[in-house]
C-alpha cells in the first residue's frame, strides 16, 4: 500500500483524441518504475463532471478537455506546459533533464517557456493529425491542415465534412455507436 507521501499525481488525458491517447500510453509505460509502482496515475477524463470533481473540487470537465491537467497529491493542479514539466519530472527516463525547467534567469524560466510554447503548438496541431473532437484549428494551423488533406486525398483518405465548421462529425459507420463507451 502506498503511503500518503507516495501517492502519484493524476494525469488526465482526452481519450477522444488519438494524439493524446498515444502520449498517454507512452507516459503510462514510462511511469512504471522498476519497482512496478507507477510514478504517475494516467486516467482518461471520461464523461462524468461529478466524478471528476471528486478528484479535485476545482476541476471543471470542459477545462479538463481544453488543457492538460496534472492533479497533484497536495490538492493543487498544474496545467498546460507546467503539467508537462510535472510529468517529465516524475518519469524515470526524463527526470534527468527536467531540472532545467526550474532554471530562473531574472524572473524568467527559459526552458519552461520553450516547453509552454511546445505544448501550445502540439495542442494546436492535433486537428491536423485527425483529432475531429479537438475542434476548429487555430488560424495558423488551417493552411497546414489543408495541405495535409490535399496530400492525403490521392491515398483515399477522405475527411468527413460536417454541415457546419462548428460541428464534430461522428464516424459514418454506426454513428453514435462508434463512440468508445466508458
Amino acid at each position, binding site marked *: 500500500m502506498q503511503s500518503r507521501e507516495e501517492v502519484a499525481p493524476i494525469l488526465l488525458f*482526452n*481519450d*477522444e*483524441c488519438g494524439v493524446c491517447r498515444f502520449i498517454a500510453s507512452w507516459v503510462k509505460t514510462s511511469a512504471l518504475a522498476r519497482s512496478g509502482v507507477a510514478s504517475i496515475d494516467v486516467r482518461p*477524463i471520461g*464523461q*462524468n*463532471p461529478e466524478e471528476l*470533481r471528486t478528484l479535485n*473540487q*476545482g*476541476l*471543471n*470537465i*470542459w*477545462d479538463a*478537455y*481544453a488543457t492538460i491537467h496534472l492533479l497533484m497529491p497536495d490538492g493543487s493542479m498544474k496545467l498546460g506546459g507546467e503539467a508537462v514539466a510535472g510529468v517529465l519530472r516524475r518519469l524515470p527516463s526524463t527526470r534527468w533533464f527536467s531540472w532545467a525547467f526550474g532554471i530562473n534567469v531574472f524572473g524568467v524560466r527559459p526552458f519552461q517557456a520553450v516547453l509552454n510554447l511546445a505544448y501550445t503548438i502540439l495542442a494546436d496541431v492535433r486537428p491536423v493529425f485527425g483529432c475531429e*473532437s*479537438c*475542434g*476548429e484549428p487555430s488560424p495558423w494551423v488551417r493552411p497546414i491542415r489543408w495541405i495535409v488533406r490535399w496530400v492525403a486525398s490521392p491515398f483515399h483518405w477522405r475527411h468527413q465534412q*460536417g*454541415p*457546419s*465548421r*462548428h*460541428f*464534430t*462529425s*461522428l464516424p459514418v459507420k454506426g*454513428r*453514435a*455507436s462508434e*463512440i*468508445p*463507451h*466508458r
Partner: protein
Amino acid sequence: MSGNKTIDRIQTVTARTFDRSVLKGEGPIVVEFMSYGCAHCGVIEPDLQQAAKIVESAEKIFRVNIATDRELADIYEIHGTPTLIMFLNGKVVGRDEGPSPVLSNILALIREPYE
C-alpha cells in the same frame, strides 16, 4: 467554459429520464446532443448557458451526452455534435447541427421553431 463558479442551467437527461423530461414535458423543450470531449460543444457551452438563462421562463434546455447515451443518439440520428433538437409536446419541430457559437444565433435558433 461553464466554469465551476457558475450555475449549470442545462439539466442532463439520460435514456431513463428522456421520456419523462422531454417527450412528456410541457411546452417548448430544446435538447442539445453533445459530448464533453467535443471541443465545439465546449465553445458553444457559455452561450447556451446564457441562452438558457434568457429563455428559462418560456423554454427548457436539456443536454444528452451521446458518449454515454448512444441509444438516444441513434434514435434521433445524431451525425455529430453539437446538435440541437427542438421539441414541442413530444414532437420534433426543429433541428440544427453545429450552430455558430454566438448568443444571438443560438437564441434565434431555439426560438424560431416556436414562433
